[in-house]
């Protein structure tokens, strides 16, 4: 060894592997405006499609007259349901087992519904042409309030399935009923409530909102009629599934459908499903034989594709006098809009709502969810959360506060008293989940210490007294939340989409000089996959991350996977990456042993190569091993060095965290100020702390927006109110609070590298934390629950109602 030999630390650092704050590979192109997003794509002869949309929430279509539009120079075609019917494409299957009209068939069921698709030479002509399509409507009574959906005299919305008494998830009780989903022990739960010293019951509404990524949904479809091949570029969080769906719908063999998701400008759940725009662009390209682009505008995005939430959760807890929770009962009325287009795993019509027992050892519970149709846009997507987990966490974390209030107990203490103990993991919850790992008490204590919880409560007591003495018009709220997420869907035994198990995949190929290309079945929309997957491989294989290129989104080259949503990339594709790397490593070990002329059991891994046990000088670096794999593999061994893994996770992962929000509220205006927000996340093994922190910042900002005002509102006629960024609350840098982040590390025992996923935790945990802060501020005035969103006027109204 000479002085030039790098130390172990230097060798380790050079890899930029797991745990390192590696700078992002993606940023080099994004900071120079060289990202490649769908709308950047321009193909020769490309046409542009645009929708004529319903102006009514509920109406019968009497007549569509496209003659004036067709007469406009530059207009190539106008598609209506009548054109799609012969192809059997006027309806498409949804992921939730329902069907959705691609173009309205005789009736429109929500304002903004797709009625006709105009194809023109460019987007300007298309925009002119949609104004010229005349649609004659006969208005019908709209159904807007989900609580009226199953009234006897409620209007019939879905004439196409009016005779179906059996839905995809069991019997339908009413013509506007979609499903009832129940889980848990009803009798046992009722008994627990009968015996309880204390019970609480509250209807917790989680309002309708929207993921609203900055880039809307868009695609380019290009049918090559000579080759019989369809290429579809689009904003797809799950490109492989879109390929399968496109193949099934268009009747083109799957190997002749090429789906490509280029750079995506944010997804947050908005870009999981298939939308009429994709189908119409494909049909138009098939009919016209040229590429067709479809780009949603912002108003269309907010009013037609994929709302989130709209869950109305009657939540009950039973407890003993001293605060031991003995049971939980929840009934959800779920407003799905006009079609059930939830992007949940097929067998889970209410997603993983049954994680609603939260972080607490609740012995018995029962959950029932009724899904109903209304004259609103379809969707019900998981907006930056695993399926319905945000709703579930909101229910339990509000309920625990309400229970604490009734018991006269501090809610932090109530949480600590009921937490699942660290020794209880793996823990089987009353509603059927096996939590993998956790140490809730440690996390909660760390959070409370970090914010100086007792001092905050003391300050709050003083401020309340000052308020009551009339010395201030400001009140202080301390919001707590402790969430357990359920992510990484999921085991193929119970998780599938359209019958395809929710595994994910990685394929790693090492080239002779050590350059690596790895491809995954997932698709980044800002999460930094090109950076972090390379870090996993770097650590596993001792190859510098800078020598590893990650590719996603091209369904011809990437292995089949189910995509990126529900925080599943790290738990599932990240695991596949580690497993594939380990297959390569096993082969590399054989090659190294052969090169070192020892038995393979006699070599051991050493950062970036193998060495002979007990003879550290006798080693082969991965670079040498890789070269050997291509020119002198051991006898009888295939040359080359590559592996693929399709990883079927044995279980979900269960990230958790403790959040604290300190908020000051001006009761005269309802204006609030988030003084402090502390977020402790435990996502297991941390691959890139910089990226984790960024994910937490972003998720908290979305949670802040949702809790404090972000809403898709409808008026009584079913008109969408405020579907623009003027009204839809996306906070700017001025409104956005400063975030403090922290962590504990409790690895997942079943994940190859112990990682759990983090992208959605801050949204899931953040929403109840903000809402709890508002509610806590008003609790001393006798308030039990104030519904979200907590925008200025609603806070003011609550203050007035409480006499503040």
């Amino acid at each position: 060894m000479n002085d030039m030999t790098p130390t172990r630390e230097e060798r380790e650092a050079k890899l930029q592997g797991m745990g390192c704050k590696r700078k992002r590979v993606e940023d080099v192109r994004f900071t120079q405006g060289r990202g490649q997003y769908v709308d950047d794509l321009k193909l020769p002869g490309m046409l542009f499609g645009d929708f004529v949309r319903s102006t009514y929430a509920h109406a019968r279509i009497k007549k569509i007259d496209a003659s004036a539009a067709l007469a406009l120079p530059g207009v190539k075609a106008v598609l209506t349901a009548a054109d799609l019917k012969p192809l059997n494409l006027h309806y498409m299957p949804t992921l939730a087992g329902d069907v959705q009209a691609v173009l309205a068939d005789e009736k429109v069921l929500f304002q903004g519904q797709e009625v006709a698709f105009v194809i023109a030479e460019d987007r300007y002509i298309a925009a002119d042409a949609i104004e010229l399509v005349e649609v004659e409507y006969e208005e019908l009574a709209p159904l807007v309030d989900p609580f009226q959906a199953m009234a006897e005299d409620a209007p019939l919305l879905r004439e196409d399935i009016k005779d179906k008494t059996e839905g995809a998830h069991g019997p339908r009780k009413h013509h506007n009923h979609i499903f009832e989903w129940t889980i848990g022990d009803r009798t046992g739960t009722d008994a627990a409530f009968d015996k309880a010293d204390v019970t609480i019951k509250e209807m917790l509404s989680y309002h309708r909102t929207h993921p609203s990524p900055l880039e809307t949904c868009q695609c380019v479809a290009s049918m090559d009629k000579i080759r019989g091949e369809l290429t579809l570029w689009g904003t797809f969080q799950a490109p492989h599934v879109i390929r399968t769906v496109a193949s099934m719908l268009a009747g083109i063999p799957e190997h002749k459908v090429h789906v490509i998701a280029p750079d995506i400008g944010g997804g947050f759940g908005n870009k999981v499903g298939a939308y009429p725009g994709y189908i119409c662009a494909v049909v138009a390209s098939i009919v016209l034989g040229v590429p067709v682009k479809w780009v949603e505008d912002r108003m269309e995005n907010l009013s037609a594709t994929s709302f989130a939430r709209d869950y109305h959760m009657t939540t009950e807890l039973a407890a003993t006098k001293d605060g031991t929770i003995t049971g939980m009962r929840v009934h959800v009325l779920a407003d799905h809009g006009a079609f059930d287009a939830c992007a949940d795993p097929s067998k889970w019509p209410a997603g993983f709502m049954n994680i609603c027992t939260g972080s607490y050892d609740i012995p018995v519970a029962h959950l029932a969810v009724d899904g109903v149709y209304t004259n609103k846009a379809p969707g019900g997507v998981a907006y930056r959360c695993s399926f319905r987990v945000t709703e579930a966490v909101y229910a339990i974390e509000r309920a625990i506060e309400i229970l604490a209030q009734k018991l006269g107990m501090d809610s932090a203490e109530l949480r600590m008293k009921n937490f699942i103990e660290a020794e209880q993991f793996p823990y089987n919850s009353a509603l059927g989940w096996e939590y993998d790992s956790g140490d809730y008490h440690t996390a909660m204590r760390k959070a409370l210490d970090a914010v100086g919880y007792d001092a905050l409560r003391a300050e709050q007591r003083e401020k309340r007294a000052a308020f009551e003495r009339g010395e201030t018009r400001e009140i202080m709220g301390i919001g707590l939340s402790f969430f357990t997420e359920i992510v990484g869907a999921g085991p193929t035994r119970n998780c599938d989409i359209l019958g395809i198990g929710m595994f994910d995949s990685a394929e790693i190929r090492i080239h002779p000089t050590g350059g690596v290309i790895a491809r995954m079945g997932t698709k980044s929309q800002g999460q930094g996959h090109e950076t972090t997957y390379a870090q996993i491989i770097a650590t596993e294989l001792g190859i510098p991350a800078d020598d590893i290129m990650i590719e996603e989104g091209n369904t011809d080259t990437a292995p089949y996977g189910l995509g990126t949503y529900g925080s599943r990339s790290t738990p599932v594709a990240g695991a596949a990456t580690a497993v594939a790397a380990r297959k390569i490593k096993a082969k590399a070990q054989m090659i190294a042993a052969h090169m070192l002329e020892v038995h393979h059991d006699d070599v051991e891994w050493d950062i970036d190569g193998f060495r002979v046990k007990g003879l550290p000088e006798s080693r082969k670096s991965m670079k040498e091993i890789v070269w050997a794999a291509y020119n002198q593999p051991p006898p009888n061994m295939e040359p080359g060095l590559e592996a693929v893994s399709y990883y079927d996770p044995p279980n979900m992962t269960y990230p958790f965290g403790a959040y604290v929000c300190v908020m000051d509220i001006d009761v005269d205006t309802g204006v609030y100020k988030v003084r402090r927000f502390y977020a402790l996340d435990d996502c297991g093994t941390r691959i890139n702390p910089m990226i984790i922190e960024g994910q937490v910042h972003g998720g908290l900002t979305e949670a802040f927006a949702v809790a404090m005002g972000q809403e898709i509102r409808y008026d009584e006629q079913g008109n969408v109110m405020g579907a623009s960024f003027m009204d839809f609350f996306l906070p700017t840098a001025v409104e956005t609070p400063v975030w403090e982040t922290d962590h504990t590390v409790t690895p997942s025992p079943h994940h190859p590298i112990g990682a759990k996923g983090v992208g959605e935790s801050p949204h899931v945990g953040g929403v109840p934390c903000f809402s709890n802060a508002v509610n806590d501020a008003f609790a001393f005035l006798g308030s039990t629950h104030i519904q979200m969103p907590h925008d200025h006027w609603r806070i003011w109204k609550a203050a007035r109602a409480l006499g503040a």
Partner: protein
Amino acid sequence: MIPANFAYHSPSTVEEAVGLLARLGDEARALAGGHSLIPMMKLRLSAPEALVDLSRIAALKGVREEGSEVVIGAMTTQHQLLQDPILAQTLPLIPETSAVIADPQIRYRGTLGGNVANGDPGNDMPAVMMTLDATYTLAGPNGERAVKAREFYQGAYFTAAEDGEILTAVRIPVPPAGAGFAYEKLKRKVGDYATAAAAVQLTMKAGAVETIAIGLTNVSETPLLAEDAMAILAGARLEPEVVDRAVAAAEAITNPASDGRGPAEYRTAMAGVMLRRALARAAARAQA
């Protein structure tokens, strides 16, 4: 969101602009910064056949003092109002208002004239101009005329400007030295119109209000001059009881729409709170 097509004209003098508008008639619109008009056109809520872009008329830009008045060219941008040394000295209420209008990009393009001329009750400057008792200079086919800001606003998007007239300048009397001022605006976030806002310009003498003007933004079909409240406060000390009466008088003239910013009752109450706060701040700033 694509606008319908139109003919584009870019005159370099006021006379040329006025001539074009006269020739093109009802279906032509003057284009200032465009941040109200262009989104409306993109939503196809407005589809003028011709646009007369005023941005190349040099005579419409800049701030100058003329005797006891300050004259602001209609095409002076919010960004320029924020930076202008004359306004900082003489009419600080104006830059204080500009600072809470929209966002940096829009302030670079948005103009004073555009803000006051189109009659949008959501705009901030109209109530401020009423408070400052500004006079608008209108140029039309029959020459120039002056209209008081306090008489200009007749309904939502409906003003005293005749067809074919353009607003060329705003003349504002310079308040006396030591005057107090404040613009209080409640909004949901940067870039939003006011939930409610109040402008106050006052002078104090011997611990009492000497002169006062109050304007209210976005709580009626037009910007409001709170004359009853002004009458209650003029000559009075700002005792709680007096302020309460003035605020009640101001609230009484509001008639806001219920929208995403809140129901009418909330917006009325916020007009009151904003006035209360603007009064306190203006009085504190005034040198008695």
